[in-house]
């Protein structure tokens, strides 16, 4: 019964999405206020219906209703409650429902917080979101319905891939999807602007918080995925340039460019056409990322079940959404009059450089990811593009990006003096040089470059704040006033830029990691990275739905005990699969990392890693997202309304 209710709610959501797509767009075209005003209510209705559908699926999974095919295929009565809940979005059908639900949340959020938007713009944005939504809901209903029944119901479920039974991965999809789907809102704004043929500073101000929110979620989602790969998959790496990882990196790169170019639209009314294209492109990359994962078209380690039929449906959906928006772009973009002019050396110029570099990196990643597929199609050649290609091509683009990142924020708008700006950063440059020389002396050229870049970013971000608050140059009370008066967006920028510096330091640290594969009998020990690793014992332990084998390893340095590591090997009898549970001991500056492998003749194969600065990689991403969130809390973005009403008037007066 609950399953049928969920099925009905899904269909109801689809019908409401169709109405949400048609009525507000038609109303906006006819300038019918009544029809336009219906948009938020329709968006709320769709959200309620889809929340009901998602709730029904979670319920079916929690009570282990194995007459629902999706539950029978992916759940098991012995599975812990947390994974019974989170498992609903760990499979293809459930994740499409989650995707649609988040899209509905976006539509409802525009309805709820878009009170200060012009009625026609709000109606069009919600209408475009409804259009996208009904495509996904049709896909869910026709090709991947999570509520289909099986008869007779199996006695128990088939269980879930043990690798996915992990708290990190449980929350990875919702966060990542919030990022992917969140970019639907800037996309909808872009399409609405193309329909209206008008973009002004207010548009930039409205788009930016939505883009920034999606960007924060995407940053966290990617970082969480990378962290999961680090501690759960257990190869000791954090980024593999796998097609699925690349698919999440592409919208992040263009989304980062979008967050920056929207500033230029807001402040200077320039780069309008480009920003619209970025908004469309970012969502297009989000959608095609889903497509690539679902269709199994790219050779990746973590794709869903390969199903070309599903792939064709999603491809059609993509063609409709992306194609129609790009046709609109080709037809209407020339009506978007460009505004302010600026010199190459200026804040705008720096932001343009940022956009060029970020989009170049994205182009390189797209090329490397797609080339094997298209080479096979066109040339018939089977080849693979691996990490060496990406490392060699991305690095030369990251270096100028990092160099410009600290300079950009200290340049003034319209026209700036590069020499004066660099003078304000002299101590950041000095610190970076010292760090670089020190690192070059110890570890060689590439880590030195990375550490110098990291110091340049962190100190440069500080320097910008110091410059704005005139620390030590004015009396302390005035400094405090300036700190209090500083916009939170300025802190946000500094924090986000410093966050990238922290991530780069982490990556540089990881390039100095050392590891060893050893076979030890209990009582034997080995030496790695200055530590003595002694295997104390090998024991069996029970788990909820697995059997566990635990190795206890004691670490000591110069005969002083440092830590006990207990890596485990979990055997899931249901899936006949063994998953290693990595033991990590961190102190914030280095990770001690141990994996228990096979056992032979009483000896256990252990993989031991010493990973300097590893946690900084994800800490930096968290700081970046924190910077974005701080920027979001800026008064100017929260209270767009009064400023926004003034802005068009001011713009009109200026013309």
């Amino acid at each position, binding site marked *: 019964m609950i399953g049928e209710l969920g099925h009905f709610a899904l269909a109801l959501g689809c019908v409401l999405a169709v109405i949400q797509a048609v009525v507000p767009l038609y109303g906006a075209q006819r300038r019918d206020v009544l029809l336009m005003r219906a948009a938020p209510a329709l968006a709320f209705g769709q959200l309620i219906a889809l929340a009901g559908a998602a709730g029904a699926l979670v319920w079916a999974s929690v009570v282990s209703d194995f007459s629902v095919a999706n539950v029978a295929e992916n759940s098991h009565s012995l599975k812990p409650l947390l994974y019974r809940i989170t498992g609903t979005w760990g499979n293809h059908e459930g994740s499409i429902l989650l995707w649609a639900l988040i899209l509905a949340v976006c539509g409802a959020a525009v309805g709820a917080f878009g009170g200060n938007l012009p009625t026609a713009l709000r109606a069009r944005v919600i209408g475009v979101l409804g259009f996208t939504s009904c495509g996904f809901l049709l896909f869910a209903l026709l090709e991947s319905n999570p509520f289909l029944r099986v008869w007779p119901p199996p006695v128990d479920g088939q269980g879930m891939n043990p690798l996915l039974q992990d708290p990190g991965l449980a929350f990875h999809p919702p966060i990542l999807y919030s990022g992917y789907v969140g970019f639907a809102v800037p996309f909808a704004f872009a399409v609405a602007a193309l329909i209206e043929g008008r973009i002004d500073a207010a548009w930039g101000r409205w788009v930016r918080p939505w883009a920034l929110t999606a960007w924060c979620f995407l940053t966290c989602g990617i970082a969480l995925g990378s962290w999961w790969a680090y501690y759960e998959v257990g190869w000791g790496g954090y980024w593999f340039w796998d097609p699925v990882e690349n698919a999440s990196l592409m919208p992040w790169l263009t989304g980062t460019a979008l967050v920056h170019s929207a500033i230029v639209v807001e402040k200077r009314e320039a780069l309008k056409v480009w920003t619209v294209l970025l908004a469309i492109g970012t969502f297009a990359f989000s959608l095609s990322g889903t497509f690539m994962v679902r269709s199994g078209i790219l050779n990746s380690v973590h794709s869903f079940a390969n199903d070309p039929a599903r792939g*064709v449906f999603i491809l059609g959906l993509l063609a409709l959404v992306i194609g129609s928006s790009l046709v609109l*772009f*080709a037809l209407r973009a020339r009506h978007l009059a460009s505004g302010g002019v600026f010199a190459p050396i200026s804040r705008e110029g720096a932001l343009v450089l940022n956009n060029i570099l970020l989009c170049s990196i994205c182009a390189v990643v797209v090329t490397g990811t797609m080339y094997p597929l298209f080479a096979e199609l066109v040339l018939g050649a089977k080849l693979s593009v691996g990490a060496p290609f990406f490392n060699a091509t991305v690095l030369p683009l990251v270096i100028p990006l990092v160099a410009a990142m600290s300079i950009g924020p200290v340049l003034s708008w319209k026209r700036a003096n590069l020499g004066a700006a660099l003078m304000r950063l002299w101590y950041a440059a000095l610190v970076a040089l010292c760090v670089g020389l020190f690192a070059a002396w110890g570890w060689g050229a590439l880590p030195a470059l990375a550490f110098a870049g990291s110091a340049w970013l962190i100190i440069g971000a500080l320097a910008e704040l110091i410059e704005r608050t005139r620390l030590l140059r004015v009396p302390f009370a005035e400094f405090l006033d300036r700190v209090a008066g500083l916009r939170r967006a300025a802190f946000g920028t500094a924090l986000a830029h410093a966050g990238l510096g922290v991530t780069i330091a982490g990556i540089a640290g990881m390039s100095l990691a050392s590891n060893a*594969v050893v076979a030890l009998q209990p009582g034997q020990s080995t030496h790695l990275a200055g530590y003595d690793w002694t295997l104390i014992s090998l024991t069996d332990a029970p788990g909820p739905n697995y059997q566990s084998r635990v190795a206890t390893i004691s670490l000591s340095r110069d005969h002083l005990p440092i830590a006990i590591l207990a890596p485990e090997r979990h055997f899931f009898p249901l899936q006949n699969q063994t998953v290693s549970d990595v033991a990590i001991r961190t102190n914030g500056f280095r990770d001690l990392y141990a994996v228990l492998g096979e056992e032979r003749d009483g000896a256990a194969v252990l993989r031991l890693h010493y990973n300097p600065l590893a946690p900084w990689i994800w800490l930096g991403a968290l700081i970046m997202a924190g910077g974005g969130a701080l920027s979001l809390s800026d008064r100017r973005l929260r209270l767009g309304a009064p400023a926004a009403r003034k802005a068009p008037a001011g713009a009109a007066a200026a013309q």
Partner: protein
Amino acid sequence: MNRRNLLLLAPLAVAGAAGVGFYAALERMRRGTFDPHSLPSPLIGKPMPSFVLPGQAPAQFGFSSDEVWAAGSPVLINFFASWCVPCALEHDELMQLATSGVALWGIAYKDKPEAAAGFLQEHGNPFARLAADRTGRTAIDFGVYGVPESYLIDRTGIVRWRWAGPITPAITADTLRPLLQQFA
């Protein structure tokens, strides 16, 4: 149509080309003529590349492609390295294969001789013959994708099968054993 309008059409053209490519790939997947996950070797059905490689401790002498050809039975050539984690995982299965009488010949790929020797001393040596490919030139001739990687050479020196990645008991049972019988 002026240049600016053409430029505005460019994103549509790029997306369209990508869409057509994706569609073609999906169609081929559906017809079974395209599998993104397979890694076929262009060498299959062709003679193995010729090589002469020096010895690798504990073996005193290396081997050449002529010796593989002269072995008189199918030979499984395994590229391995002491620094490669999946190689250690694969090792148990290789030991099993060796005790069941499969002619298993090893090539240490881009490895220090003493490190490779230590690896074999620690985990056991399943290889009837051992050679070192320190520069990786022979691996390039074979088209090695990454270690571990194995090639089955039949009695006439023709490459019959290639496996990129660790050999598991399932692969032995499902693929390798039938092939060994076929070409014995």
